[in-house]
């Protein structure tokens, strides 16, 4: 029974979310440990653990779910490649966009700074996803 219960914990791990990468990993690793323990206990004492067929069905389902969880964990990091983005040594493409006051600002203006005396050494363009 303990074997069945520990295998059922995979269904809990499937809800592992993006709170923090380490939490996602913990939710992935913990069921693996419990799965191994459950499997060993279920197979080691057949006279104690009845319903071995049910146990094996759960085991197969757990393996599938474990694979899916792992797949989601690793694939969720995928982002589109940006090989064509400006690389070190290349010129940053010019642009003109509106700021929070509705004023249009160009890259050249940003690089020049608000006044010549305090011209910035560099500008850090931070592209972010938005929707905050």
């Amino acid at each position, binding site marked *: 029974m303990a074997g069945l219960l520990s295998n059922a914990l995979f269904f809990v791990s499937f809800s592992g979310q*993006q709170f*923090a*990468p380490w939490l996602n990993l913990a939710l992935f690793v913990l069921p693996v440990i419990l799965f191994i323990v459950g499997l060993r206990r279920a197979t080691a004492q057949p006279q104690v653990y009845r319903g071995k067929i049910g146990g094996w069905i759960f085991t197969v389902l757990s393996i599938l779910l474990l694979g899916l969880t792992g797949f989601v964990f690793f694939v969720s*990091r995928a*982002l*589109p490649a*940006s*090989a*064509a*983005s*400006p*690389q*070190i*040594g*290349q*010129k*940053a*493409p*010019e*642009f003109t*966009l*509106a*700021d*929070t*006051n*509705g004023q249009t*600002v160009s*890259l*050249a203006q*940003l*690089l020049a*700074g608000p006044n010549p005396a305090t*011209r*910035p*050494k*560099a*500008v*850090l*363009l*931070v*592209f*972010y*996803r*938005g*929707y*905050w």
Partner: protein
Amino acid sequence: MRPVAISVDTPEQSRDLCQKAGYTFPFLSDPNTEVIRRYHLLHAGAAPDRHDISRPAEFLVDSTGTVRWTNFTEDVRVRVRAEEMLAAARAIH
């Protein structure tokens, strides 16, 4: 070194964000992803409402307009380390 943030958010949305968070550097709006595409950062359909947005990336650009450091966050859960950015900025003479 002066940060400039760019996203598809409208000026109004960015203004709200700046006021709440206390940011004082420029926030620019690229709602049509024109500049995002020019920098090859388009992440099609990735917004909560399925609109196109930018993938996260940073470019350190010196006064001549040359890119001196880049960071393409491969993992959205990993934030760029401030030390790396500052080291790159200090290296610019």
